[in-house]
């Protein structure tokens, strides 16, 4: 038997004193954040989303501030530089005004190096190219000549090129689309039946670009002082080239962006929003309400789009040549909401069966709250994809509508209508199609990345992770 300790443990008052609070485990390391603040934080951390946000801001600034920095009028037609690619040569010489030509003078000397004596009279300029010829060796009666022109050197047996004119005269003046490049003219003698003989002559020449003093003044090139004949000056600068009427591409892109971005962003936002509300109500309600609502959506989809656009144009009373941007916006919303509605309804039908929905209902949540606070955010991914994909679609629909007279009236540009116009010359002047398409692509890319980032940021399940 151990000796019992004489001092057994006796509780003392200090044992019952309260312990100091250890807060380390429950220390708040950072301030509390709401759902939105958290979403914003995560968005900012997503490099791609941030990049896309900057891109969008950049585009909007480009279209809004652009007109103040680049002051060329987008509808001014620089007819001497039609369809110029960016960086093309801009030199031009001043020449006297155009005088009609009635043939060579009697003392005109003809070249001796070809069968018909084909000679260039005067200089070959973009105003006119004047050709004269003696005639074939044995023509007593003049049965006429056919004049051709091509851009490429001719080998034996090649077709002569573009037929310009058939004429009985021994001279010809060409004024058709003369560009500062090499041309090969061929003159062929015809026989009494009007059929080409084998008497022909080819002449190579290089056209020089010229404008008159009056034209220089009209195009605003005389600001630095008057110009004299024979002087060489530079035509206006067009960094992105010009279109089919000589209008500056950069200016058109800036102004066009205003229309396209406005429609491209707001129209999808509006009709997808409308679709979301409609579809979620239909999906959640189910039953007869759902059926009726969806059948109405089917009805709206099956109506012929073009027909009703024309009708709406008449109803809105858009006058000729007026810009009907707002009516167009309304019209697009009226006709395009069913697709997102159907999509969202489908999602809602799925989500409706989730556990948390029933739990919420048990807790007494009202329909409004359930649908818009719980279910819709969980369809965010699908909704965002739809919005971003409707952006280019809206831009092209706007182009199409402007084409039929609804929307912006000429000469107001928009990216979509610039694409339409650029298609025709896709092979020869690709820059007319390339730049507006590029801008549309950038916009679409930006919205896609932003959409991705938004979806990640708004995804409630990702909250409080990493």
């Amino acid at each position, binding site marked *: 038997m151990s000796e019992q300790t004489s001092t057994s443990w006796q509780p003392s008052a200090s044992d019952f004193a309260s312990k100091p609070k250890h807060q380390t485990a429950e220390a708040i390391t950072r301030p509390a954040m709401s759902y939105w603040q958290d979403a914003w934080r995560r968005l900012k951390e997503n490099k791609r989303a941030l990049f896309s946000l900057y891109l969008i801001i950049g585009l909007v600034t480009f279209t809004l501030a652009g007109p103040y920095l680049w002051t060329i009028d987008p509808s001014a037609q620089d007819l001497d530089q039609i369809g110029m690619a960016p960086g093309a040569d801009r030199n031009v010489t001043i020449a006297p005004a155009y005088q009609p030509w009635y043939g060579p003078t009697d003392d005109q000397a003809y070249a001796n190096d070809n069968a018909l004596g084909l000679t260039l009279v005067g200089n070959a300029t973009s105003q006119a190219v004047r050709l004269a010829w003696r005639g074939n060796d044995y023509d007593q009666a003049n049965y006429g000549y056919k004049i051709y022109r*091509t851009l490429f050197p001719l080998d034996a047996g090649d077709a002569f090129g*573009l037929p310009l004119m058939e004429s009985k005269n021994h001279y010809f003046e060409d004024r058709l689309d003369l560009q500062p490049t090499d041309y090969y003219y061929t003159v062929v003698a015809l026989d009494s039946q009007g059929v080409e003989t084998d008497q022909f002559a080819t002449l190579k020449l290089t056209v020089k670009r010229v404008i008159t003093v009056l034209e220089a003044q009209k195009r605003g090139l005389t600001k630095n002082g008057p110009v004299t004949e024979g002087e060489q000056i530079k035509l206006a600068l067009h960094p992105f080239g010009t279109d089919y009427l000589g209008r500056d591409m950069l200016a058109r892109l800036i102004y066009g962006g205003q229309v396209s971005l406005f429609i491209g962003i707001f129209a999808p936002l509006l009709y997808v929003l409308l679709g979301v509300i409609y579809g979620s109500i239909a999906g959640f309600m189910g039953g007869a309400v759902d059926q009726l609502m969806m059948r109405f959506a089917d009805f709206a989809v099956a109506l012929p789009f073009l027909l009703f656009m024309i009708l709406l144009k008449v109803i809105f009373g858009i006058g000729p*040549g007026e810009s009907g941007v707002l009516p167009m916006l309304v019209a697009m919303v009226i006709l395009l909401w069913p697709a997102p509605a159907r999509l969202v309804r489908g999602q809602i039908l799925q989500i409706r069966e989730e556990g948390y929905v029933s739990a919420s209902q048990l807790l007494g949540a009202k329909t409004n709250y359930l649908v818009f606070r719980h279910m819709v955010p969980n369809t965010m991914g699908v909704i965002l994809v739809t919005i971003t994909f409707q952006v280019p679609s809206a831009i092209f629909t706007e182009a199409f509508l402007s084409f039929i*007279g609804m929307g912006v*009236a*000429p000469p107001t540009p928009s990216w979509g209508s610039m694409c339409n*116009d650029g298609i025709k010359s896709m*092979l020869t002047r690709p820059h007319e199609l390339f730049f507006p398409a590029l801008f549309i692509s950038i916009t679409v890319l930006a919205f896609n990345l932003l959409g991705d980032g938004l979806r990640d940021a708004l995804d409630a399940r990702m909250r409080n992770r*990493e």
Partner: protein
Amino acid sequence: MRSKSTSNSNTHSNSLSRQLGLYFVLAIVFVAGLLLALNQLAGLMATATQEAQAVDFANNSISAVLREEPPQLDSSKATDSTSGLVLGHIMEGLLRMDLQDRLSPAIAERWEVTPTHATFWLRKDAKWSDGKPISAADFIFAWQLALKPETGSEYASLLYPIENAEAINTGKLPASALGVSAPDPHTLVVELTRPIAFFDKLVVFPTFLPIREDFYNSTQGRFGSDAKDLLYSGPYTIKSWVHGASMLLEHNPHYWDNNRGKLAQINFAYITSDATATLNFFKDERIALARLQAENLTEALRLKWPIRRFADGTVFYLEFNHREDHLSRNLNFRKAIQHALDMEELVYKVTKLPGYLPGKSLFPEWLIGVEKTLREEYPASTVTVDSAKARAYLALAKEELGLAEFPEITLLTSDNPVSNIQSEWLQEVLKQTLGLTIKIDKQIFKQRLAKMSSGEFGLLLAGWGPDYNDPLTFGDLFASWNLNNRGRYKSEEMDALIATAQNATATPDRMKAFGAIQQQLFDDVVILPMYERGVTYVVHPQLKGVKRRVIGAETDYTYAYIDPDA
């Protein structure tokens, strides 16, 4: 969690990607199977096009493109150019235009036009494609058919010079009252209501083509809707017609003229209106002829294709609205615009389409006058473009109209690319030179027509193509009674001149009247001629003898042949 899932997918991505790969392969197999099934299905439907070859010397056939499905092959009702093209190959009438564009005998061997009658003597060896001879009765039946109100033929008015024609068309007389008779099966006598010197030029038009009564009745209302519902009088028959897709023409063995229809087959293998697609078919050597646009020109030159050009006969002009409540009723206003617009700039620098001629007159260059062309005998007056003068006229107009400022003016135009370019150019030039604000009203086809008829425009970009080869088809446009006078220009002098042109029998008198009409159009600036349209096209080098026509079949292959050594 994110990093975790990436590492997860890293380690398992191999198996997953194999799974996915398997799905890809399954998908391809499925698609291949589907394609096979669809191939069978497509073969069942009679829409297969034979693999077209542009020029086939061995079979003596060529292939080409139709711009649209021919809407109407019933010659009593046909109005459009595609139907006209097909009809020009499968049917023949009393007279036709030859290779030199002169009126020449066809089914009628000879003819005579007097102030009261037109008589046609038909050849005895002309036969229908079923072997039966073509008789005068066939013409009578066709013309009566075109005039019957229930047929609803839009060009019935061309037959009005015939006695009682108009009364029949308005329902006042039965069709049998028509003033045509056939004393014997090969003579056709036409009674005229008034002297018409150019009646023989009128009968070239498709509405005058023959239709045989018993065949027409046997089709029970389906005449002209399919290959078997047509009887052919021309060098070709339709062997097969796949609607919307293709049409195959074959030489008609019963056709009388051995100089026409040298090709054994003409295969219109594609039906599309897209010019780029057509050019692609040409490049791929599927068709023998294709139109060129300005954008493809460089490419065509580079490929050294033979390029041809022809004036398609249409004249385009700026039409003013002469009604009471429009600015353009003021002569000085119109003169201002006349002096501001340089049509040479439009044609040479802006539209740049080769083959277009800057407009000088309503009457195109190719119209024949007495001996030479009408324009050679009566040259059109022109104006030099002068902005200062233009502004002076505008100031005068402003005073006369009592305006402080000019309001906006509407320019009505269509939605095709060429009119786009022109209207935008016009808008800009008038703004720069005259300070006028032009609103471009772009309308698609039917809406534009509606506005044209009701006069809802200030300025109108209009065009007119000829119906028959006589200056009257252009000359009577601005008569006050002509519904095609959209601006409602009214002038007693003009009406009197047109009446002379219609009724005079001596050609010099008529041509003089046309010259005067041309002058009045200029002095009064009724319209502003813009350009005469031309077409450039490429042809396969081995195909020869293709004739382009201003009136009738736009592209005429009936004299064409293949030259294998070209």
